[in-house]
């Protein structure tokens, strides 16, 4: 790994995003719109505040999904356009590509998460007991996880169509199993066992842990959940390294 090359990759990915303002606008504002929609559709209903119940999960889920899609498609393009091969035929290390990408996308996520957290806490009155920076930190970890998974998936997809289809295939089951809609201990044993190895479970638990904190402290177990998310992301990213082959058929 060479810092000069890693940063060149980061800068180039950000340049590509800047050329595509529509995508950037979608990445930044769709999570806010969805949170707003969530607040609005339940606004007439008395009872529990849905922004409190689902807001943190949304803040965990959106960076993960968006980065997953962006990474899997842009990496697939690099493969099909031959630019990946060109980079690898140069002194680029695999880690330069992976970390360069991750840095660029995590930077985008920083803006995305700041906006959605600001909207939720500032305007929609979302209750958060723990510190706001902890929310941001969890969101960043989730976007990192999305980047890592998207990268791994790009190796298995031959076309952009397939890459997009991996999203519902990999993300929706995790969403159902993560305990958001139904508490995990009421699930069938097998479903619960599966949920225990899925990263999104920990991502959403970490968000809830920050929310449930008091006096600017997060709830116990939150950092462990966060660590699990980061650890899984690092492992997946490590596996992703093997999908960046210098030599292809």
């Amino acid at each position: 790994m060479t810092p000069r090359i890693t940063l060149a990759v980061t800068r180039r990915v950000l340049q590509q995003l800047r050329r595509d303002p529509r995508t950037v606008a979608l990445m930044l504002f769709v999570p806010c719109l969805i949170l707003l929609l969530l607040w609005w559709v339940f606004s007439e209903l008395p009872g529990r505040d849905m922004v409190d119940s689902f807001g943190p999960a949304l803040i965990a889920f959106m960076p993960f999904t968006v980065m997953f899609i962006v990474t899997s498609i842009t990496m697939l393009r690099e493969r099909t356009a031959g630019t990946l091969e060109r980079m690898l035929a140069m002194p680029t290390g695999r880690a330069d590509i992976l970390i360069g990408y991750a840095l660029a996308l995590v930077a985008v996520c920083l803006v995305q998460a700041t906006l959605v957290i600001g909207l939720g806490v500032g305007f929609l009155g979302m209750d958060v007991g723990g510190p706001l920076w902890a929310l941001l930190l969890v969101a960043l970890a989730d976007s990192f996880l999305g980047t890592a998974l998207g990268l791994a998936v790009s190796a298995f997809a031959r076309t952009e169509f397939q890459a997009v289809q991996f999203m519902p295939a990999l993300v929706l089951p995790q969403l159902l199993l993560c305990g958001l809609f139904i508490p995990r201990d009421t699930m069938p044993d097998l479903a619960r066992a599966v949920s225990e190895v899925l990263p999104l479970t920990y991502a959403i638990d970490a968000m809830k842990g920050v929310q449930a904190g008091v006096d600017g402290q997060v709830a116990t177990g939150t950092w462990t959940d966060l660590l699990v998310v980061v650890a899984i992301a690092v492992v997946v990213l490590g596996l992703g390294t093997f999908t960046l082959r210098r030599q292809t058929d």
Partner: protein
Amino acid sequence: MAPDDVVEVADLRVTRGGAEVLHGIDLTVGAGELVGIVGPSGGGKSTLMRAIVGVQANVRGEITVLGQPAGSPSVRGRVGYVTQAPSIYDDLTARQNLEFFGAVLGVGPDEVQSALATVDLAEAGDQVVGSMSGGQQSRVSLATALLGSPDLLVLDEPTVGLDPVLRRSLWGTFRALAAAGAAVLVSTHVMDEAERCDRIALLRAGRVLATGTPAGLRERTSADTVEQAFLALIDEVAA
């Protein structure tokens, strides 16, 4: 291996998609030499070039580049490679593309500008590649390979689809790069381009049919042009 051989390929065999597509290739390219690979479509030109650059899997035989096995980390920054289809970012400008690959190689903006000028794109440098014509795109791809003054240039049909004036000027560039000491390996379908090489290898169906200087090949087959020599050699094998 002669002391100034930049590329030495010995008994190279490559399997692609389960079938052997190169059946024992021998080839050398010396420093300062401009070598052309010509031959029918599907003959294995691109595969041979990929193997020399070190991006081809399932390779057997010896390929030495700048004294190291092909694709070794120490030679990666010293080889410029142009793939047959332009491999550049079509959502960036030509300059941004070159600046990126330049940063990977550690070369500065001066060299980016001169590479753009070499391929006659100095004016169009800030145009987004996706909005460029096919010929302009392949020139951006070519400019990328010129960055960092590589010791070996591997150019897979770099002049395809370009007009005669530009083709002549690019061949002038290849010649100048060779004169400056680089080893230049160019594949082409256009036989009158091949006349400009120091040496030609005729590659057909995964085998080198003949190698030699253009004049030597013409003489051997009593042909007037390399194209006729090429056809005569193919007929010779068929007979």
